[in-house]
């Protein structure tokens, strides 16, 4: 019955109950001061006291309850003390109990406080012994409410435990026991504000009442244990184990066997063996009689008069003639369910058996028993067939699946197996319980987890080999290949670049050329390339071109080496590359070396792990990112960029500068990426204006080409930021070249990142908001002057604006001829697309949609952020560069 429906006790009774709880509360509070050593000093003498009184307490229990077998109860008392002690003695239950140095976690035990404990009539003294030891080991106080018909033996057990505990230092009042407990008392205590946990061991009613109180509860209850006696079982052992278990304490342990499903092949032999060992096998009439008398026909539950009685007494009760030494009654039944009364739980030595003609039928019968009041509790199988044991384990919903051993004693743990010793069986949600475990000390603790900050390990991954400077293409001769495919475009072929490459490939190599359009690669183009790779059995790909050509070659290689690779799936978004859900394949079908030779100085695709693919059929872009996409070799030879037109030089150069600046302030920046980012920035500022003004200046071209590659090494590992997210959205919508789109956003993004963020984003590797200081450091590197971080940031923005002017890059979106109205219409979509762009994932400042809108408008108007930048923060930290 829910506790809400139970009337409160009288005022006098409430005062009495309040007194018990107050004592327990004080004891629990005082107990919090105890150390592990204090606790362990108390537990051992308690256990010894319990062991010394095991027989005495067993006798008291049988005398009072008239249930069970004194000798068996004595064994239970010994298990509840000795076995439980053996399990808990070395367990840490105070302070730090477990440490995981590699993950920076420490588990710290916190006692619960006052536990209200209901104990059953079937295992009264053993349960009290068990709970007393657990409570002291965990520094909790316990108020006991034993079953009324087992009160005296429980109170005596508690007294023995209490005296031993207090004698050895436990706080006074640590155990109290409700005298003559009633339902009203229990309901009152279950709802009491100072009771922190209810541990209700007993029938389903106690368990349900506990949970209905709204308090945290360990309500564990009844079972209905199915047993599968499979044809490969060691039959002699199985029969003895089942008899041992089902007759132990006259079957009062709720994990004991209830219905044995026996394979047809061994059914008759099994029954004969049972009969030979003193078991009475009932005939049909006897089974029917038994079913109608020991099971309540209305409730479909066992009759209390039979619980814990001997087999011969039960036989006598119903007028059954059995031999005087009969220890168990076996009742063959033809099915499971309400129409077969004996298929329910029977906490007395009556066992139902059922014949099965196949494994499938046997498993189904066991499932039926399991679901007839036994969900979550215990199931038993005797078999030597591991496959069938596996199937049985999957089919049963039971916290304890006992294999080739007695159910009752097996479930108690520690005797026949290594289950945790317990007198309280959690039955999981199937049994309406909060746990499926053998209840143990850890259920009597609040376990606190101390989690130290663990910065993620960083990385710096780059291609195996990078060759650079004029005529570096000659290194192609170092690479042996049977069959090489050069992926390029028609324009480069006309410019003579393809011939230069061909001349440097060893003569014995069979070379084919695939010219693809000079645009973002399409799926169709990539698949044509894969076809060529397969038909020529290629072992080397040379990608000669800008970012599009190199990206195409990366994806061709991926599909060639891993034909099953699903590009859509591989493009799944991720927050942290190390934790991504979809992993790139690793077992290759084909092998091909990818050598990338860039013909522009901007994207850095020759060293990056990224590739963009356009799926025109589905109207979408697919961005792939994985270090397996990085080319094996990069040849950064400036002879291929000497003829770049001025506009392309400016756009790609600014793309390179954006890569370096964004990598520099990224939340994934490291001392390794900083080294590259800063050098790239320095090279761009020094050489890009020269390369722009004097395209034939070899040194300037070479240094800008190197800068693009170096910046790419930085952003391959630190990623980019919100500038790229804005540029991707804007560039795609208005058909503006990537580098130019980046340039339009760049000064505004720096001002934005350098100001105090509206919202900080989680980034465990960042110990402070360092973006402003890093911009200031870049300004120092460039010798831009300034005394404060604020001044230096403004000087950096001004220097970038000056560079953009030098390169004749439009300074506002309006300058591109885009009307304000058109831009206004586009803004909502642009902001959404930019927000969905993964590029800003490592931006130092988390962009809000409204801020993205503001940034777009700033870029539209092009007002100088060098003059408008708000005051940046000045973090008090050192930054590594």
């Amino acid at each position: 019955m829910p506790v809400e429906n139970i009337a409160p006790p009288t005022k006098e009774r409430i005062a009495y109950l309040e007194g018990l709880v107050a004592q327990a509360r004080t004891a629990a509070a005082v107990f919090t001061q105890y150390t592990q050593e204090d606790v362990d000093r108390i537990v051992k003498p308690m256990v010894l006291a319990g062991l010394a009184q095991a027989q005495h307490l067993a006798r008291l229990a049988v005398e009072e309850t008239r249930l069970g077998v004194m000798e068996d109860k004595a064994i239970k008392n010994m298990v509840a003390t000795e076995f439980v002690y053996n399990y808990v003695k070395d367990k840490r239950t105070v302070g730090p109990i477990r440490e995981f140095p590699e993950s920076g976690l420490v588990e710290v035990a916190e006692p619960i406080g006052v536990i209200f404990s209901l104990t059953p009539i079937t295992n009264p003294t053993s349960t009290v012994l068990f709970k007393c030891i657990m409570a002291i080991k965990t520094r909790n106080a316990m108020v006991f409410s034993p079953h009324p018909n087992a009160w005296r033996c429980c109170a005596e057990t508690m007294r023995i435990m209490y005296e031993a505990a207090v004698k050895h230092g436990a706080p006074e009042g640590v155990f109290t026991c409700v005298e003559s407990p009633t339902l009203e008392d229990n309901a009152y205590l279950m709802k009491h504000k100072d009771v922190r946990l209810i541990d209700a061991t007993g029938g389903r009613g106690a368990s349900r009442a506990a949970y209905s109180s709204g308090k945290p509860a360990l309500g564990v209850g009844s079972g209905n244990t199915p047993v599968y006696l499979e044809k490969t079982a060691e039959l002699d052992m199985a029969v003895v184990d089942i008899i041992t278990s089902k007759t132990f304490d006259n079957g009062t342990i709720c994990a004991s066997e209830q219905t044995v499903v026996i394979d047809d092949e061994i059914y008759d032999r099994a029954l004969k063996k049972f009969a030979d060992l003193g078991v009475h096998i009932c005939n049909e009439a006897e089974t029917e009689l038994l079913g109608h008398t020991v099971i309540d026909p209305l409730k479909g539950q066992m009759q209390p008069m039979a619980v814990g009685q001997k087999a011969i007494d039960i036989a006598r009760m119903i007028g059954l003639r059995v031999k005087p030494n009969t220890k168990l009654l076996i009742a063959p039944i033809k099915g499971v369910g309400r129409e077969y009364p004996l298929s329910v739980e029977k906490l007395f030595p009556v066992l139902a058996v059922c014949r099965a003609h196949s494994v499938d039928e046997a498993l189904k019968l066991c499932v039926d028993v399991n679901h007839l009041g036994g969900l979550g509790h215990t199931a038993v199988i005797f078999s030597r067939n591991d496959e069938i044991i596996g199937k049985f384990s999957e089919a049963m919903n039971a916290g304890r699946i006992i294999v080739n051993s007695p159910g009752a004693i097996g479930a108690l743990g520690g005797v026949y197996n290594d289950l945790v010793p317990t007198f309280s069986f959690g039955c999981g949600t199937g049994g309406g319980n909060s746990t499926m475990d053998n209840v143990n000390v850890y259920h009597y603790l609040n376990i606190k987890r101390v989690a130290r900050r663990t910065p993620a390990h960083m990385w710096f991954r780059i291609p195996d080999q990078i060759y650079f400077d004029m005529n570096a293409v000659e290194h192609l001769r170092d690479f042996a290949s049977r069959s090489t495919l050069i992926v390029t475009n028609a324009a480069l072929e006309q410019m003579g670049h393809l011939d230069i490459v061909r001349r440097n490939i060893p003569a014995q190599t069979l070379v084919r050329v695939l010219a693809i359009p000079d645009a973002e690669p399409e799926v169709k183009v990539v698949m044509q390339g894969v076809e060529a790779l397969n038909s020529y059995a290629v072992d080397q790909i040379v990608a000669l071109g800008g970012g599009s050509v190199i990206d195409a070659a990366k994806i061709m290689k991926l599909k060639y080496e891993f034909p099953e690779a699903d590009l859509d799936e591989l493009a799944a978004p991720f927050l942290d590359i190390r934790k991504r859900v979809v992993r790139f394949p690793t077992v290759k079908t084909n092998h091909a070396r990818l050598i990338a030779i860039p013909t522009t100085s901007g994207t850095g695709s020759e060293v990056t792990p990224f590739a963009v693919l356009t799926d025109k059929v589905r109207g979408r872009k697919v961005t792939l990112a994985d270090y397996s996409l990085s080319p094996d070799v990069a040849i950064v030879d400036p002879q291929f960029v000497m003829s770049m037109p001025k506009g392309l030089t400016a756009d790609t150069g600014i793309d390179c500068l954006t890569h370096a600046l964004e990598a520099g302030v990224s939340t994934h920046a490291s001392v390794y990426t900083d080294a590259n980012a800063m050098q790239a920035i320095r090279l761009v500022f020094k050489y890009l204006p020269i390369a722009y003004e004097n395209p034939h200046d070899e040194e300037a071209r070479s240094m800008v080409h190197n800068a693009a590659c170096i910046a790419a090494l930085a952003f391959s590992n630190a990623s980019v930021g919100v500038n790229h997210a804005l540029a991707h959205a804007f560039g795609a919508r208005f058909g503006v070249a990537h580098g130019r789109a980046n340039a339009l956003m760049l000064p505004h993004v720096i001002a934005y990142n350098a100001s105090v963020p509206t919202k900080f984003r989680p980034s465990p590797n960042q110990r402070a908001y360092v973006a402003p200081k890093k911009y200031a450091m870049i300004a120092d590197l460039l010798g831009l002057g300034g005394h404060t971080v604020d001044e230096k940031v403004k000087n950096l923005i001004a220097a970038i604006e000056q560079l953009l002017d030098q390169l004749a890059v439009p300074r506002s979106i309006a300058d591109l001829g885009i009307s304000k109205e058109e831009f206004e219409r586009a803004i909502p979509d642009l902001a959404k697309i930019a927000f969905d762009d993964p590029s800003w994932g490592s931006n130092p400042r988390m962009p809000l949609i409204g801020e993205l809108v503001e940034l777009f408008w700033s870029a539209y108007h092009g007002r100088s952020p060098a003059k408008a930048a708000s005051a940046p923060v000045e973090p008090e930290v050192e930054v590594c560069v």
Partner: protein
Amino acid sequence: MTANELIAQALAKLDGASREVALDLSSVRRIDPSAIGALEKLAGAADEKAVKVALRGVHVDVYKVLKLVKLTPRFSFPA
């Protein structure tokens, strides 16, 4: 000196106290149920005499016990 003895001293001083009695518990590392009872008694007596009791130097473990038995509102805990 035990916690109980300290509390007994404080009880004795309540009569002569004007407005506040301070009790230095900095040497107390652990209290038992009887000390808690004595503190309850002290708080009750102080209430009757309208005297405030300040517990000084209370160790955090002891403070936690007082918190669990809901005694903290009845005392002040100067830093």
